[in-house]
């Protein structure tokens, strides 16, 4: 009798087994990435073809600088003077070189001060500038279309670019290095063979690293690379030490490691064929080297890179 009761209880409980308890399953979406981020599989076609050889950093010898406000008739400088403002392509995302001061809303930095020196030489007033923000990839198209008078935006002088635009003499000598998370164990570009590296699209840095690392990711701006590094979507950022110093200054958990593995001579980009403007800008740069204003600008922005080196010596081909 008791056994019967036991069996019937067992049967009953077996029959009344409910469904498995429900579970809450989160919907996981893809992690956000900077707009326009993409993986680069091959170097841009222009740099894949054998680079034309030339003496890239040799520019045009400047004559004496005309006094401010009195530009030679018919010159490109006079055209700018008559317009009343210099239109300059700069960056607003490269801390220390060209960036937007979020307190004042003004664009500032090493490159921006170079622009102001040029404006001062034309107008006698360094404020007569209209800044146009350009991405790395937009620099040459903007010069070719004439939307900007010149570009001062961490732009490396290369033979390949010289076929499409003109450059001033070298105003800063940078070199490519890598930025990694502190204590990540990556010590130079050679330790990144099986890693992901972020670069800005249209920069010379891209061609310099693409064959030395496993994966290259490109984004529109250098700060987008820092976003990816902070979000753990890239292991390193590789570009000129000037830009990396600006990125490192925004994140104490990063450090610039390894030596320079390229030479990146910066020049002021000028539309092809405007020889008078090239000579004029070179004159302004000569003055900056000799009157100490170059060193003043260096100290203002780039002192984190070490004591001021001597300004790069200008070389001319004529």
């Amino acid at each position, binding site marked *: 009798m008791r056994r019967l009761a036991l069996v019937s209880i067992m049967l009953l409980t077996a029959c009344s087994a409910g469904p498995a308890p429900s579970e809450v399953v989160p919907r996981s*979406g893809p992690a*956000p990435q*900077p707009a326009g981020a993409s993986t680069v599989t091959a170097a841009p076609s222009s740099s894949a073809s054998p680079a034309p050889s030339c003496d890239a950093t040799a520019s045009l010898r400047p004559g004496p600088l005309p006094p401010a406000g009195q530009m030679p008739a018919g010159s490109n400088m006079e055209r700018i003077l008559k317009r009343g403002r210099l239109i300059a392509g700069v960056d607003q995302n490269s801390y220390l070189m060209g960036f937007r001061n*979020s307190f004042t809303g003004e664009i500032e930095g090493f490159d921006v001060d170079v622009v102001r020196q040029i404006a001062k030489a034309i107008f006698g007033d360094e404020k007569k500038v209209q*800044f146009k*923000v350009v*991405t790395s990839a937009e620099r040459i198209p903007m010069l070719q279309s004439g939307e900007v008078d010149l570009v001062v935006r961490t732009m490396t002088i290369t033979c390949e670019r010289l076929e499409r635009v003109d450059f001033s003499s070298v105003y800063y000598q940078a070199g490519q290095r890598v930025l990694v998370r502190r204590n990540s164990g990556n010590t130079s570009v050679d330790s990144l063979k099986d890693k992901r590296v972020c670069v800005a699209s249209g920069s010379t840095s891209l061609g310099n690293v693409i064959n030395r690392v496993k994966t290259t990711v490109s984004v529109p*701006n250098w*700060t987008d690379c*820092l976003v990816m590094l902070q979000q753990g979507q890239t292991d390193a950022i590789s570009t000129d030490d000037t830009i990396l110093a600006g990125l490192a200054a925004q994140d104490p958990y990063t450090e610039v490691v390894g030596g320079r593995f390229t030479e990146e001579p910066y020049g002021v980009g000028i539309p092809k064929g405007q020889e008078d403007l090239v000579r004029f800008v070179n004159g302004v740069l000569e003055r900056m080297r000799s009157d100490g204003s170059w060193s003043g600008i260096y100290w203002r922005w780039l002192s984190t890179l070490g004591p001021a080196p001597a300004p790069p010596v200008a070389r001319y081909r004529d």
Partner: protein
Amino acid sequence: MVIDSQPRQALVRRVTGLARSTPGRLSLIVVVLVLASLASGWLSTWSVNRQERALEDLATRSEPLSHAAQEVYRALQDADATAASAFLSGGLEPPALRERYEADIAQAQAALSVATASSPDLTATLSAQLPVYTGLIETARTNNRQGFPVGAAYLREASGLMRTQLLPSAQELYRAETDRVAGAQDEAGFPWAPVLVALAFVIALVLTQRYLTRKTNRLLNVGLLVATGAAVLSLLWVTTVSVLVMNDVADSRKASKTVDVLAQARIATLTARGDETLTLVARGAGQAYEKSFVEVSERLEGQLDQAKRLANTEAVDQAMRHFRQWQQVHQRIRGADDAGQYNDAVALIDNPYFDSLDKDLVRAIGEARQDFSDEVAVARASLAGTVVGVLVLAVISAAGSTMGLWQRLKEYR
């Protein structure tokens, strides 16, 4: 179950036998009329009930849900535009903009929880990505406060997430909810089946009356007369009420179309505002935003014209006027920015016309929603009492035909 064929054949024989004699035929007619009366009454009640449910759904579920979905979209869009303008202002963000952003996020969240109750699948992306978005905005803000340009990069990433994932999901949700409103409006359409059945029942009653007149040489049968009257009354009642409801529902469709157009206009307004701001944030690299501004403004103008045709109200007129003033200021902003007077352009963007336009649209949407609600309420009111009335009339019809024929049947005893 196996049906025994013996009793069934017997039943058929009894019924056919009955039909051969006049009293038998009369009894059969009573049964058929009573059943027909109850069937017709039941069918009408069912269809009126269905209309009532559809109208109730419109008033209490579909329309509020579609409004919630529209609010999700609007609040998200505005949050993104506001975050961009707060960034543009330089220095510490103005408290008013920060408050507006926070209010938008709170509103989006509240509207989202309303929508989630009914469409959990459609809101999954929104629920999952909204916290990610606000996280990115806060990271942007923290960096911006320290003067780091990487803040702008986080802002761009957040905006990209908004434009590629959150807003398309919100759009999809809104479409689904407006489709549901249209579905409920279709449900409240004209009830053909019950009206045709009721008409057939009236004809059957008239034919019965004629049959009795021929058989008994009495002109009228009072019972049948009452039954016919009740049936005709029921038919007229259901038809009239249905026509009234259809009319109101058609008006409510127009109101919901107006709400839809105005809601689209409001979203276009906010999109254009975001584009206008981001053009300045991009500092000369914002041609894509300006192009979008021009396109969206054209669309907005078309939507305002359409809204004016649908509902020519004072709020819509005001919206038109503020839209034109805003466009004029925009030309001046572009002029200043293109001429290198960036600070002048930034100062001009702080004008009252955008806010006025948005307020006009809110008012116009409120009015159109009230119209919708009124139409649905009128439709629901006209259905009031119909179910009970139709049922009572069906019972009267059944009783009337039974009594009328019973008198005749008694004469054969």
